[in-house]
């Protein structure tokens, strides 16, 4: 019987290796898999390339991972944060590199990576510093840049409900990058607030089919980043 449930969150991230590329779901705090990130901090993997729209806030979750010196490179669209000086300091010191990607290009590159599309053309960034050095091509008299698909070794994702097949639903705008990251990673690890029986999820409303998911961990009552930051929590 297929059962992708992993009962221990530390087991779920045990094989993340030094130098891995890790996609982390979430846009701001919505959809940020805090507990999985904290398990990854405990696990100790370093020299990671992390793909996330932002760089976390405060000193918990993704910002905690960055502060712990585990991230050598960020791929994101908006690394500025109101509540965190963690990334700016490491960026300015050169300890953490940054690949800045327009948000829609980032999303499409991840989706392409998951869909077996090695490259595609987009008008986004044409004529801007982020389009500099990219291959230009005209289609119907408009300029486009060539962008490549993005894949990862691991994806860490926060879902709302999940089952033993790895089917996942999300809560509101916590969905954001999670479904496409689940497609683009070799190993996709999802924390879900509720673990339900196979068949409990409406097959018309499953957002991430289990084929894209490798491990499901039940994390009841996951923390919210803003609440941790407001309480002054730091991790580790």
């Amino acid at each position: 019987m297929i059962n992708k449930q992993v009962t221990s969150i530390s087991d779920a991230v045990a094989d993340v290796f030094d130098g891995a590329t890790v996609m982390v779901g979430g846009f701001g705090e919505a959809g940020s898999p805090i507990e999985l990130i904290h398990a990854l901090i405990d696990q100790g993997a370093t020299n990671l390339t992390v793909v996330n729209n932002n760089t976390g806030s405060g000193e918990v979750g993704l910002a905690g991972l960055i502060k712990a010196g585990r991230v050598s490179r960020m791929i994101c669209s908006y690394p500025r944060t109101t509540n965190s000086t963690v990334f700016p300091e490491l960026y300015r010191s050169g300890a953490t590199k940054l690949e800045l990607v327009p948000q829609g290009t980032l999303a499409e590159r991840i989706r392409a990576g998951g869909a077996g599309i090695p490259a595609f053309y987009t008008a986004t960034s044409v004529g801007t510093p982020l389009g500099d050095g990219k291959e230009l091509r005209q289609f119907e008299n408009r300029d486009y840049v060539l962008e490549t698909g993005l894949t990862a070794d691991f994806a860490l994702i926060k879902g709302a409900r999940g089952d033993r097949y790895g089917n996942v639903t999300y809560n509101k705008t916590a969905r954001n990058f999670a479904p496409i990251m689940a497609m683009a990673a070799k190993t996709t690890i999802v924390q879900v607030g509720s673990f339900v029986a196979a068949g409990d999820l409406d097959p018309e409303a499953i957002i991430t089919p289990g084929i894209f998911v490798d491990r499901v961990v039940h994390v009841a009552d996951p923390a919210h980043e803003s609440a941790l930051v407001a309480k002054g929590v730091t991790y580790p």
Partner: protein
Amino acid sequence: MTTPADTVGLTRDEMAQRVAIDIPDGSYVNLGIGIPELVTQHVPEGRELVYHTENGLIGMGPSPEPGQGDPELINAGKRQVTALPGAAYFHHADSFAMIRGGHIDVCVLGALQVAANGDLANWSTGAPDAIPAVGGAMDLVAGVKTIYVITQHCTKHGDPKLVEACSYPLTGVGVIDRVYTDLAVIDITREGFQLIELSPGVSFDYVQDRTGTKLLPMQGARGA
């Protein structure tokens, strides 16, 4: 200290109201952070606009009542919002398919600089120590059918934001359709900045003096 800019021209809400008048009923609209967000409060009676936020929601409603919010229901500015009846959630690739594919009718953005050919700079001052951050701005200007800029006519230092060519790094090339400032409404045309409307009590010369390049007077009217 009182300067003319403090005493003439539209308030932020009046600017947003002026933009709202130009957005047709039934439009799908994406609003940038800041003054653009005020547009929702000035939609003329009888019109219904549908708001898209690029982090995965269409049918976005106002901020929640205190204590009623969900930290996982936020807008692109990462502030808590609500979802109206008829709203839908989707993932980021689908969200930017709406943007890139030309499905959003109007985007209203802030600006650092707008050039006479429609170039926009609104994501970076190019300062060497700044943390570069672009978000969805480049996708929005490349994909949305109509791009409006809403901005003070000049910077806090009195420098013109409407210029012959942007000195800051570009967000997009030739993408802006119209600029709404505290002083005027100005279209981007093949010939450059075309004055469409002056704010009450503001003269052509007053606006021209605060514009970094030639401003074409209103058609059928004489400059100054």
